[in-house]
């Protein structure tokens, strides 16, 4: 096990990957249980669940790309795009249900005007709720968050595979590091967040510090693992 400049680069890549996962979780609009009842805007599921689902789909795409090429940028891009497609399909089909089955217009109660489209929000918020559906700002924020998660997952997988050359070992390791960072970031969010326009988003530096500490410990453990004789 030779400890040289490459190892430092790998450790940094794993840490950056973990940070991308942690901060990406803050972008995904998660409404939790209330959103599933059209009581809050965002996707109606848990933070960790959605982050894990999308980020690991990106990891699948990146794993396939890494078996045929060595180009870092292609692998990262395919991880990001894979996760982006998954989150996009999720949010789009969720919008169908909100618009046609429940019959509600999309609105968020956290802002008065949508930052991207300029649509007004309060007249379209149902009484007794804090918004419903997935307005354009939440959709875009979710897309960014999903792609960051996929990018982070691919960036964790890449150095691990180069160190130990074993796809299954690197995959399980990447899943483990991904889940630890996603759960710590979700603790920071305390359950629900609407995206980068939500006032809760300003808490991201805490998650940055927390994920950095956890990722450093995990990265040091990861680079010391061999791939077996």
């Amino acid at each position: 096990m030779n400890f040289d400049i490459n190892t430092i680069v790998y450790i940094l890549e794993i840490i950056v990957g973990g940070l991308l996962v942690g901060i990406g979780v803050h972008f995904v609009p998660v409404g939790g249980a209330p959103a599933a009842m059209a009581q809050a805007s965002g996707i109606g599921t848990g933070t960790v669940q959605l982050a894990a689902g999308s980020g690991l789909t990106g990891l699948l795409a990146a794993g396939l790309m890494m078996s045929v090429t060595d180009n870092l940028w292609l692998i990262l891009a395919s991880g990001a795009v894979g996760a982006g497609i998954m989150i996009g399909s999720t949010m789009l089909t969720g919008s169908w249900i909100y618009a046609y089955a429940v019959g509600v217009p999309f609105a968020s109660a956290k802002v008065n005007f949508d930052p991207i489209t300029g649509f007004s929000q309060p007249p379209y918020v149902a009484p007794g709720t804090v918004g419903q559906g997935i307005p354009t700002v939440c959709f875009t924020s979710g897309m960014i968050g999903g792609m960051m998660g996929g990018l982070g997952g691919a960036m964790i997988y890449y150095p691990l595979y180069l160190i130990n050359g074993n796809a299954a070992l690197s995959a399980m390791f990447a899943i483990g590091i991904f889940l630890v960072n996603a759960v710590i970031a979700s603790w920071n969010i305390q359950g629900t967040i609407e995206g980068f326009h939500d006032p809760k988003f300003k808490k991201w530096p805490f998650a940055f510090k927390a994920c950095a500490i956890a990722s450093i410990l995990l990265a040091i453990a990861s680079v010391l693992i061999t791939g077996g004789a």
Partner: protein
Amino acid sequence: MSLGGAAGGAPSAYDPKKLRMYGLVGSVVGIYIGAILNSALDTNLFSFIGAVAAIFAVVMGANAVRRVCAYGIGTGVPSIGMLALGMGIIAVMFGLSMAETLGSVLLGPIIILIYAGVFGYVVGVIANKVIKFNIPVMEEGNADLSMAGAMAILGWSFAVSGSLGYVNILNDVLMTGYIAIIFIAGGLAILHPFNANLGPDEKQDRTLVNAIMVSGLAMIATGIAAIATQGLAAGLLQLVIGFAIWFYFFKMFYRLVKRDASAVVGTGLLPPTVQ
């Protein structure tokens, strides 16, 4: 998943320190006995002891989930289970690889335990100081969870592979993909008991019996896996013992349900409301 119902500080009939000691000692001693017996007698038949050792670790983990989640951390029970398993798998791989590099296979469980305990404690400190949860049991609860997850994964990996050597575990458990079922069955074994018994009248013994019952199911799964990696005899032995554990503890769970529920009826209309 739902958070309603549990107040801060779940009542315990069994002291958490005792459960932690039983869990750690039971799982570590069990894995060592299985490993030594397997290598001394050059056989595979004692791998099932690893799966039984994992049950001790799962009970400790399920109790830790009870204590931490009772404070309402805002993200629900499933994330805690996933965290425990994420921490556990990294600790297991790191410990086994280190033991291989240092030369002695039997050092593995000790290194895993130390790394898992330290890392879990650090995550608990991060939660309390950086994210500012200020939950009293967070540090030791997280350390408990991390060690429980690591020991459970190690126990089941040993049950599937039959030896503690790093290369054996890599070939039998990781390259075949069986690590995935160990990971998710272990995670659900730790988080399902508290989640499935959530409510104001949750009783600790019913929750822990549920944990043992789910571990029996996981042992059936590792038994099926062991048929491929260790041959029909060792695999069927694990399968049968796992089925027996599951059956016995499911009946005990049902008996506790009849004790605790307000009524268990064959059929009926809506019960009279309280308010």
